[in-house]
């Protein structure tokens, strides 16, 4: 079941088309990656999902309902450009932001206590934000995003500018929140992060969606039937039946031709005296897929 469905959404600023008829589907309780280089239209798309901007056309359904007000309350959003009221005290600020999401003061206090204890920062309550270090502010920013227990959490470039400790912390929290039922969308231009975390992705380029679906499906879709064999001893004679893609010491990378199967390759290798240590298929990285796609569809 999809918790969020974006259908044919279009947004232009003056004559610049920022988002050009994009549709995405985010399954419930998934970790969804929105990919694309800087300036692809990710942030504009997110701003429409979070009701900061209204789309020129198209619909955005959260749990089947297109209601910008409802989305505001149910989504927790951490923008790429982080920001807090510098002169406001940490505790007051978090309560304020939670209440703006229609949370009761009492419920907000309870959540605040939970997160403060979890991050072991209870003594920060009365401190002004400007007194905190950057790393500390990032923790507060994260709490402000999730304090109202949103069903969808959107993180725009969540790891940019994070120190490794906070980066790990937030990654852990993302998994835990998902475990508890939240759906997480995060956008990034760093493709390698997506492979670690996301199950589903959508790729955006110049305002257009160029690809979407479960990460594994996409990888399979773009696989080039390349296998890597690590072996002991001598490389058996392949007799020209298989083309060598890359040769390393005690390893060979082979690309299968049409009609050839991996079993065939393995059997041939063993029958010809090869001693196999490991046998893997090499799937393309998201980065490679992206470059492949953009290269193919680029209008430049």
């Amino acid at each position, binding site marked *: 079941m999809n918790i969020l469905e974006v259908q044919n959404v279009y947004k232009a600023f003056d004559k610049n088309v920022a988002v050009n008829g994009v549709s995405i589907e985010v399954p419930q309780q998934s970790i969804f990656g929105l990919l694309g280089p800087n300036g692809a239209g990710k942030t504009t798309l997110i701003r429409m999902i979070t009701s900061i901007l209204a789309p020129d056309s198209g619909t955005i359904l959260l749990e089947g309902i297109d209601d910008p007000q409802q989305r505001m309350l149910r989504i927790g*959003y951490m*923008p790429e450009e982080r920001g807090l009221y*510098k002169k406001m005290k940490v505790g007051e600020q978090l309560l304020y932001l939670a209440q703006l999401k229609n949370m009761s003061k009492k419920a907000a206090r309870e959540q605040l206590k939970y997160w403060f204890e979890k991050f072991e920062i209870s003594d920060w309550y009365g401190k002004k934000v400007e007194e905190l270090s950057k790393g500390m502010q990032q923790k507060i920013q994260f709490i402000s995003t999730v304090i109202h227990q949103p069903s969808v959490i959107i993180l725009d470039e969540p790891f940019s500018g994070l120190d490794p400790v906070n980066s790990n912390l937030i990654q852990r929290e993302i998994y835990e929140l998902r475990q508890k039922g939240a759906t997480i969308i995060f956008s990034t231009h760093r493709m390698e992060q997506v492979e670690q975390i996301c199950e589903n992705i959508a790729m955006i380029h110049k305002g257009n969606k160029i690809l979407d679906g479960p990460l594994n499906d996409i990888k399979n879709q773009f696989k080039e039937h390349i296998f890597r064999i690590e072996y002991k001893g001598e490389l058996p004679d392949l007799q020209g039946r298989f083309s060598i893609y890359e040769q390393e010491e005690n390893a060979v990378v082979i690309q299968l031709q049409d009609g050839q199967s991996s079993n065939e390759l393995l059997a041939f290798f063993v029958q010809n005296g090869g001693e196999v240590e490991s046998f893997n298929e090499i799937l393309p990285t998201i980065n490679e897929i992206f470059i492949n796609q953009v290269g193919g569809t680029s209008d430049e």
Partner: protein
Amino acid sequence: MNKIWLIIQREYLSRVKKTSFIVTTMLAPLSIIVLLAIQFLIIGAGQSKKIIVVKDESGFFVEANDSYQNVKLKDSNTLYFKGSDENLFELKESYKENGYDGVLFIPPVSLKNPSGIQYYSDKLLGIATRTTLEQNLGEVLKNKKIEEAGLDQQFIKDLRTSVSITERTPDEEGKENSSILASAFGFLMGFMMYLTIMIYGTMVMRGVMEEKTNRIVEVMLSSVKPFQLMVGKIVGIGMVGLTQFIIWIFTVGLLYAGIGFFLAGTMDASSMEQMMGEASQQVDIDEMQKRVTDIIGKVQSLPIGFMIFAFIFYFLGGYLFYSALFAAIGSAVGDDSSESQALVFPVTVPIIISFIILTVILEDPNSSIAFWSSIIPFSSPIIMPARIAYGLSPFSIDFFLSVLFLILGFMGTTWLAAKIYRTGILMMGKKVSLKEIGKWVVKR
């Protein structure tokens, strides 16, 4: 609505709780008292005593015999006269050694043409002292003339007749009013309006800019509508201003009562004389005291209640009218404060022009420029309170139109500002021109 209320609360409390707010609110009335006190002290300290040696060759000013020099010039707190029969040359040489400040030389003048009187000193007299001295000399000659004409001194004194006009409104109550006082209060009210609209308007602008440069705005806008954020800020800061005024009106009320008590009770004749400067010498102390009580009476005759109401209404109206524009500018500029100067200019110019008009209005509060400028919402918050101090009736068509147009006006600017704000607030790192802002307004 609930969200706007939360925003108002934050904007209000975050400012009112600041020590700087408490300090300025408390200190502003206090600093007025301190300034007044300093002024009195300076006036007191500035009146150094001068001793002048008088060489009179006319015989009008000094009655002399061998052992005795009786100067007819009246001594005062600051001027003392001493006759001398030494010759002028010697006096000029020695006046300093003998502890005098200067030499007043009167040649053998005639009563009709008392010219050629000289004052020798290395220090100038100063305008006030010189005027006093001239009046003093004139008085002596006048008395001499009266004497020579064989007139009775008392009769002449009685001839001096002082007349004062009481201005009243023509309605049944026949309220007494005073032009001088009204213009003083009118100016004060207009000036306060000008100041507060500027101060609180820029406060709104800075607040908006702060949210934009802090980048908190995107977090906020994922929870509230731009309009809610803008209106919440404007109302919150407006309430800060209102709080400040209410505290001030209250303290001024107390002060006023205190000053009344002070003037009526503890002030004795000599300190009064000192306060009013040397020019008051000619005026009877009784008359002086009468005037002071008169002023107090006239202040009470002003439409104080209506003035306070008008002040608060026009503060709110003018503030809402202009702060919406300031908020729009704040949303459009963002990071670069030097750039904001150029955009703020079109908003501040009408405020400044209104203030200039105010000074003209005080001359003639019922002119056509007064009428129009008190109806147009760009200037009415500054002009209308002044006209009300002049006794404009709350039931007049002028007041009705002024209120109506101001309310329509701030609704208009808020509508306009909302359109600019919602686009400008998310516009990062881009230089914005007035022309572009215009485009945002017409945009759907």
